[in-house]
């Protein structure tokens, strides 16, 4: 795979460039929106929810920001990734290129966005007076995990999208549901232990939780917490790769 990636490097770079240019076409602020829109979201959420949940959650702004940071990367990468096979049908039906290039290029774009917001996030953390410790390096684990998770889910979605266009509407509903289930703006400490455990089945919640533990509480999550995350990433990525391999030659018939 890496051999192929090297061989198609120029194409890959051009695809990344294309995705970028198309995204910010006819916007005055251009990339500024990547930073501005999550900040606006954060402002709205803080404004609305501080009354309800803010009082008993310390560092509430950072608490929400962790949630938003992870969730917006996740939803940007996967929603954008869904259309990548369909959208590039004009290319792969004419030239023999690996189809994951399109998905990866879209993911690179989402990753750059995420990187920008991450910088703003750290600025907020500093402004809030939270200490930067060596434990911050542990954040590499959930970040890499999330990247792979996004790619895996993007593979599954983009393959399904070729067969059933309904997926986009179903997925919209699903992500909305997932957002409310990820404890982005509320705290689950008040729930019974049983309910709290149910949250651990949500991979996005795990990623958010990891960020919060490191940044706000300055503790490294337990070993099994790491394993649980790895389990999600491996199974989703595995399923995605399997689908791409299985349907690789069949996409052609559906576009």
């Amino acid at each position, binding site marked *: 795979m890496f051999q192929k990636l090297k061989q198609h490097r*120029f*194409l890959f770079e051009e695809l990344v460039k294309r995705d970028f240019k*198309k995204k910010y076409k006819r916007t005055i602020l251009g990339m500024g929106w990547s930073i501005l829109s999550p900040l606006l979201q954060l402002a709205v959420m803080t404004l609305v929810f501080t009354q309800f949940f803010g009082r008993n959650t310390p560092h509430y702004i950072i608490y929400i920001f962790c949630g938003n940071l992870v969730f917006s990367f996740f939803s940007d990468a996967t929603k954008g990734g869904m259309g990548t096979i369909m959208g590039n049908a004009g290319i792969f039906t004419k030239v023999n290129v690996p189809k994951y290039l399109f998905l990866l290029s879209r993911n690179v774009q989402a990753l750059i966005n995420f990187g920008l917001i991450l910088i703003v996030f750290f600025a907020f953390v500093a402004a809030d007076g939270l200490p930067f410790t060596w434990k911050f390096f542990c954040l590499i684990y959930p970040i890499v995990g999330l990247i792979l998770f996004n790619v895996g889910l993007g593979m599954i979605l983009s393959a399904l999208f070729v067969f059933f266009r309904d997926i986009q509407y179903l997925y919209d509903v699903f992500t909305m549901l997932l957002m409310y289930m990820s404890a982005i703006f509320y705290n689950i400490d008040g729930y019974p232990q049983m309910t709290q455990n149910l949250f651990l089945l949500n991979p996005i919640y795990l990623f958010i939780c990891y960020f919060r533990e490191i940044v706000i509480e300055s503790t490294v999550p337990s070993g099994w917490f790491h394993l649980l995350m790895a389990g999600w990433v491996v199974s989703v990525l595995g399923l995605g790769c399997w689908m791409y391999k299985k349907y690789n030659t*069949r996409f052609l*018939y*559906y576009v």
Partner: protein
Amino acid sequence: MSILEVHDVSIRYMTGDFKQIGLKEYVMRRLTRNYHVVEFWADRHISFSLEKGEMLGIIGTNGAGKSTLLKVVSGIMEPTRGWVKRQGNIAALLELGSGFDGDLTVRENTYLRGAMLGYTRKFMDETYKQIIDFAELKEFEDRPFKQLSSGMKSRLAFSIASLVRPDILILDEVLSVGDGAFRKKSETKMREIITGGATTILVSHSIQQVREMCSKILWLHKGNQVTFGDDVEGICDQYQAMLDGKLKLDANGKIVG
């Protein structure tokens, strides 16, 4: 040692209900056993081989399986049965005009297309000016691609593609594009590439062109191989006779009477 060998290739093509229907409809049809996928053989038992520098013309009426065969030869599709062996790199120029992005500028599209054809960035930097000059699009460089006329689009497509130096070149009806003056220019350029030593496969509806240029002929009819050989004139005469209605082919592509 052949540079390209196609051995007993059969390709099953799928078409039918699945293309336009959504999830609900799919489940409904599955439940009512009303779900139909039509599978047909777009190509059956095609075999041929080419040596270095040879030029193959593929002829046949619409729906003969020419384009599908080219997709398999270029590796975009996998053959259902049989195998294809290629020596060296391959460039397929299929339906040149499509696959551009209307929102990107001419320059960006040029680079993207170059990348698709497997050029390197260095190569594109060096030849970019040459491409634009050849396509006569100097003053349109930074315009969005969708603002170009269709003639300009195909001119650009041709100019980029004409730089390929592959071992195997596949041409699907792209020998000449554009208006009078450009047509001449593009034909000359194409001949240059072909005479440059590449093994070439040409699909053309112009028998004249095939007679002039090709050293081997593959005749397909409804997915069957009617004949393959180097008797260019003879096969073309027969094909012409069939087009004129003087010669009939049966369902398996055998010549009857």
